C-alpha cells in the first residue's frame, strides 16, 4: 500500500513511530495527483510542489527537534473552491470570481493550518455550489474516479473525487442540500455535514445562508472525527455559529451502545434504484444482527422537502448573489458608461445557466405578490418537516436511509432537465432544512462497480452518537465483505 492510499489516522501512527515523514506523504500524494488528475480533474488549482514539500519538511523538522506538532501534522487537505484561502485564488468555479484572490482566510482554513494541516489546493465544484453533479463548473468537468464516464456527484464533486482517487488524504466540502454527502456516496468515501452552526462559515462564499454548512470528506469515519475535531467550535466572526463545547469526537467514535434507529418508509418508495435499496437493506440487517433496534417509521412530509428546499435555497441565493455587481471584486463587463448596464452585462456574462436559473426562481419567489405563496409557504412547510424529525428523535437516536435514489449517473445524462436533477436531491435536502448532522458511509457496490452510500442523521449537536454509529456500521460492513469492490 502506498502512503497516499492510507487514512490520516494510519499515517499519524506511522509518523509518530518515525516510520515515514510528512515529506514522503506529500510526495506520494503529489505522485497520485500526477497519475490520476489528467483523467479525474478534481482540482481547480494545486499549490506549487516545492512550496508544499517545504511546508511538509518544516513539520518534519519540528517533530525531529521534539517540538509539539498539531493533530493534522503535515497531512495534505484539499479545500473546496468556495472557501476563502488567503492569497490562493478562490473561484467558486465561476467566471464571476475567476481572478478573485481572497485578502483573508476562512476560519476553518486558519484552524487547519493551526493544526499543522497543509492546504494542498482548491477543488472543483458546481458554480456557486448549485447543482448535483459538478457539471455546472465553469472551469472543468470532474470525473468519477471509479468510472470516468460517470459524474462524481456534486456540488463538492472535486473534494470527493480527490479523496477517492488518493489525490489528497483529507478534504473539506460545503453542504447546502446534500453537496458533501451525495458526492461522497457517489465516490465511495465518507461525507459529513455537521449540525447547522457547529462549524464556522466565516469565509465560505454564501449560497443559501439558512442551509449552508461546511463539513468533511474523508476515507473513513475515524478521519471524519479527526478533521471535525479541528474545524468545529465557536467563532465570533460567524454570528450563526453555536457557542457549545466541542466533544472529543475521536474518543466518542469508539464508544458503542445499543442504538434505536428509525428507518423512514417514505425513503423507500417508487423511484428508488433496486441496487441501492438492497444495499441499504443489507446495512439495516447488519445493524439488527449487531443488537440495535431498527424500526420502520414515518416522516409524512418527506415528499414536500424538495419543493420547499428549492424555493428557500433559490430565494436566499437571489439575495446572496446580488453582491456580484462588478464593483468591488470579481468580473466586470467592460465598456459601459451607465452603471445599470454595467451591472446587467457583468451578471449576464459572469454567471452560468444554472446560477441564473436559481437567481430567477428566487427573485420570483420573493417578488411582490408571490412572496406569501412561495417563500412564506415554503418556510411554513419547513416547520412541518422539522416537526416530523423532532417527533422521530423523541423515540430514536438516529434516522437511517439512502442518501440518493440512484448511484452516480452518466455525465450529460441529467444536465438538460433541471427538474430531474433537483428530484435527485430528495433524500439529502432534509438534513439542511432541519439543521441536523448527517453522515454518509459507503455500504456496497452496484453490479457495474459504482459505490452506494447510506446516510445516518442525528439530533442537533449529537455528532458523538452519529460518529459512533457510523464507525460501528463501517466496521460491520467491512467484516461482512460488502465493501469489497466486485
Amino acid at each position, binding site marked *: 500500500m502506498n502512503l497516499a492510499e492510507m487514512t490520516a489516522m494510519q499515517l499519524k501512527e506511522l509518523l509518530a513511530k518515525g516510520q515515514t515523514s510528512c515529506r514522503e506523504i506529500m510526495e506520494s500524494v503529489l505522485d497520485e495527483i500526477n497519475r490520476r488528475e489528467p483523467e479525474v480533474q478534481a482540482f481547480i488549482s494545486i499549490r506549487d510542489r516545492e512550496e508544499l514539500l517545504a511546508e511538509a519538511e518544516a513539520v518534519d523538522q519540528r517533530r525531529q527537534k521534539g517540538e509539539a506538532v498539531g493533530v493534522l501534522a503535515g497531512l495534505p487537505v484539499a479545500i473546496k473552491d468556495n472557501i476563502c484561502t488567503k492569497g490562493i485564488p478562490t473561484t467558486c468555479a465561476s467566471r464571476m470570481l475567476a481572478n478573485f484572490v481572497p485578502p483573508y482566510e476562512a476560519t476553518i482554513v486558519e484552524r487547519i493550518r493551526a493544526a499543522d494541516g497543509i492546504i494542498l489546493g482548491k477543488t472543483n465544484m458546481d458554480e456557486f455550489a448549485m447543482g448535483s453533479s459538478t457539471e455546472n463548473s465553469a472551469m472543468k468537468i470532474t470525473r468519477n474516479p471509479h468510472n470516468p464516464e460517470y459524474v462524481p456527484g456534486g456540488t463538492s464533486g472535486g473534494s470527493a473525487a480527490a479523496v477517492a482517487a488518493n489525490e489528497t488524504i483529507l478534504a473539506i466540502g460545503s453542504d447546502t442540500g446534500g453537496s458533501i454527502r451525495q458526492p461522497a456516496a457517489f465516490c465511495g468515501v465518507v461525507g459529513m455535514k455537521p449540525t447547522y452552526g457547529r462549524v464556522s462559515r466565516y469565509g465560505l462564499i454564501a449560497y443559501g445562508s439558512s442551509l449552508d454548512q461546511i463539513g468533511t470528506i474523508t476515507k473513513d469515519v475515524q478521519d471524519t472525527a479527526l478533521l471535525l475535531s479541528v474545524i468545529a467550535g465557536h467563532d465570533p466572526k460567524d454570528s450563526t455559529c453555536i457557542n457549545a463545547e466541542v466533544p472529543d469526537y475521536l474518543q466518542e467514535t469508539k464508544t458503542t451502545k445499543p442504538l434505536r434507529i428509525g428507518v423512514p418508509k417514505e425513503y423507500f418508495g417508487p423511484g428508488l434504484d433496486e441496487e441501492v435499496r438492497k444495499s441499504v437493506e443489507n446495512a439495516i440487517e447488519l445493524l439488527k444482527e449487531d443488537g440495535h433496534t431498527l424500526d420502520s417509521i414515518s416522516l409524512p412530509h418527506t415528499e414536500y422537502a424538495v419543493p*420547499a428546499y428549492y424555493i428557500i435555497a433559490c430565494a436566499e441565493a437571489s439575495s446572496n448573489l446580488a453582491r456580484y455587481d462588478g464593483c468591488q471584486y470579481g468580473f466586470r463587463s467592460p465598456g459601459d458608461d451607465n452603471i445599470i448596464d454595467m451591472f446587467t452585462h457583468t451578471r449576464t456574462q459572469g454567471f452560468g445557466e444554472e446560477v441564473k436559473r436559481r437567481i430567477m426562481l428566487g427573485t420570483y419567489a420573493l417578488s411582490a405578490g408571490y412572496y406569501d405563496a412561495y417563500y412564506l409557504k415554503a418556510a411554513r412547510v419547513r416547520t412541518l418537516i422539522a416537526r416530523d424529525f423532532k417527533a422521530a428523535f423523541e423515540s430514536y437516536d438516529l434516522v437511517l436511509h439512502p442518501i440518493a435514489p440512484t448511484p452516480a449517473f452518466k455525465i450529460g445524462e441529467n444536465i438538460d432537465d433541471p427538474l430531474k436533477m433537483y428530484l435527485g436531491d430528495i433524500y439529502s435536502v432534509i438534513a439542511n432544512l432541519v439543521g441536523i448532522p448527517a453522515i454518509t458511509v459507503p455500504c456496497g457496490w452496484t453490479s457495474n462497480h459504482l459505490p452506494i452510500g447510506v446516510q445516518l442523521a442525528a439530533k442537533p449537536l449529537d455528532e458523538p452518537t452519529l460518529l459512533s454509529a457510523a464507525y460501528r456500521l463501517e466496521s460491520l460492513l467491512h467484516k461482512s465483505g460488502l465493501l469489497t469492490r466486485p
Partner: protein
Amino acid sequence: MGKITEEMVRHVAYLSRLEFNDEQIKNFTKQLNNILEYMDKLNELDTSNVEPTSHSVNITNVFREDRVEQPLSVEDALANAPEKEADCFKVPKIIHEY
C-alpha cells in the same frame, strides 16, 4: 398559482439584473413553469396555523465585545477591484445630466 408568462420572466430578469435573448426567455418560461408547477405541490398542505422557520437554530441577538481590531488595509480591500482610483472603487457614472 397561475402560469408564469414570458412578460413576467422579462420583469424578473430585469429585477435580477440579467439579460436574455428571445429564445432564452422562451426556454426559461417553459423551465420555470415546469419547476413552479412542481412547487405548487406545497399547496396540498394546510399551513394556516404553522409558524414559518427561517432558520433551523434558534439564535437571536449575538453580541460580542466592542473592541477595535485590525481591519483590512485599503490596499488589500482594493486588490480585487476591477477598476480603482485614489483609494476608491471606480464605477461608471451613477448620476447623469438630462
